[in-house]
């Protein structure tokens, strides 16, 4: 089981992170970032394998009549921990799903986004984009005069018809290590020391986040 002991909410030592801590970090990043971050399929696969193995072990131990009272207590702790890991996995996937559906039409039209999603997620995004367009066509557009049926009007002073991630949104970042300087909107440079927490627009620290130098809190 991943270390369940002290809740390392802000793990300082990147080298000794367990996969559960990594998942927690990616989960928090994903929940705070306005954009969709690269998916962590390998990590998820590893964790789920672990969970599966652990569940099997628990079943074995429970079936064993010789296990002591103390062991039963430990089994219960392990089971609870399994449920909690599953909760984080679930929440992580649902967070991504929420953003994927929100930006489905943008994703379908933007190849750069594709590599950040898993195959299943990408397929869902495309299906969902088609579904929404179909729904709009059925309910509204097909009844309008032909000149008004486009879903991609570009009118000045009106928001785009294809929602995109808002990279200007401010986020709290926590530096996991000393970071390379980044340029703030006013032109000055920001160099974060290890452990420092700042509030900046998302696009400023986007690259740092992808390089794992900072995390969102």
């Amino acid at each position, binding site marked *: 089981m991943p270390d369940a002991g002290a809740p390392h909410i802000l793990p300082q030592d990147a080298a000794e992170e367990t996969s559960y801590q990594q998942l927690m970090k990616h989960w928090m990043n994903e929940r705070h970032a306005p954009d969709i971050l690269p998916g962590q*399929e*390998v990590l*998820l*696969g590893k964790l*789920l394998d672990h*969970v*599966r193995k652990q569940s099997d072990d628990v079943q074995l131990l429970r079936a064993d009549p010789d296990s002591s009272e103390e062991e039963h207590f430990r089994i*219960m702790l392990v*089971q*609870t921990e399994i*449920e*909690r890991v*599953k*909760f*984080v*996995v*679930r*929440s992580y*996937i*649902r967070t991504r*799903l929420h953003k994927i*559906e929100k930006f489905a039409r943008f994703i379908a039209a933007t190849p750069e986004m594709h590599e950040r999603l*898993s*195959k*299943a*997620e990408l*397929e*869902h995004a495309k*299906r*969902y984009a088609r*579904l*929404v367009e179909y*729904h*709009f066509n*059925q*309910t*509204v557009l097909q*009844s*309008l*005069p032909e*000149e*008004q049926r486009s879903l991609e*009007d570009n*009118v000045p002073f*009106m928001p785009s*018809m294809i929602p995109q991630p808002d990279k200007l949104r401010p986020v709290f970042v926590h530096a996991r290590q000393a970071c390379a300087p980044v340029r703030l909107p006013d032109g000055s440079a920001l160099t974060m020391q290890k452990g420092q927490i700042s509030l900046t627009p998302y696009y400023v620290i986007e690259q740092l986040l992808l390089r794992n130098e900072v995390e969102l809190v």
Partner: protein
Amino acid sequence: MNAASHQFGDLATQLLTESRRSTATDTLFKYNDVLVRSIIREQRQLEGFIQAALNDPKNNPANGGENPAMPTILLYQTAIMRNKRCLLAYHHHRIERLKDLYWAVGGAVPLLLSMPSGSSNVGSQQTGGAASAPSDIRSKLSPHEVDFLRSYAASLLVLRTEAFSSDGTEGLTEDVDLLAPITRPPKDLHVLVRVVRDCGVVSTEQGAIDFRKGHRFLVHRADVEHLIVQGFLEEV
């Protein structure tokens, strides 16, 4: 329709107000077919005005210079764009609400459709939609919205059965139930539940349990999570 007080876009504003009220009161209103139709009629009318202005020989720009009807056309065009966006926004808002409902009942579409309306905030409160008329959610939806909900559920089913891991091992559904609630992390392995509606015999870790109305059980949370979400059981 009173021509003196009527402005283009008034109807669309009504539609948006309805969406806003829906959010504010956390209820799903009945699909406003009449209003949507009248706005679409207004769109056709506006398009007609534009064509008329363009075809009017008085406005022929052939003799150099700008088309004198340009400001008029621009006004109609703006009204058209606004109405269209309002229509789309209304429909989008509704499908977002539908999706919320879908997740709130753990993805059970038939249950969702037959659910008494007025209790869209499932789980958080008693499912007592007594105040409103005894109609179900389905009667509030347009047929297209029911279609949308079905297709959406189908798409999610594919997503859940397809493997998440790239190496193509077992699907995710085996281990993690995506539809389970994510509002509160589990603190306890077991949960004390009261049966609100009969749900027959369910096999749990402690063996098969016959959940009859009014009884209480202490059961493994993971075994009955979906029953709690769908409102058969209630946490005590």
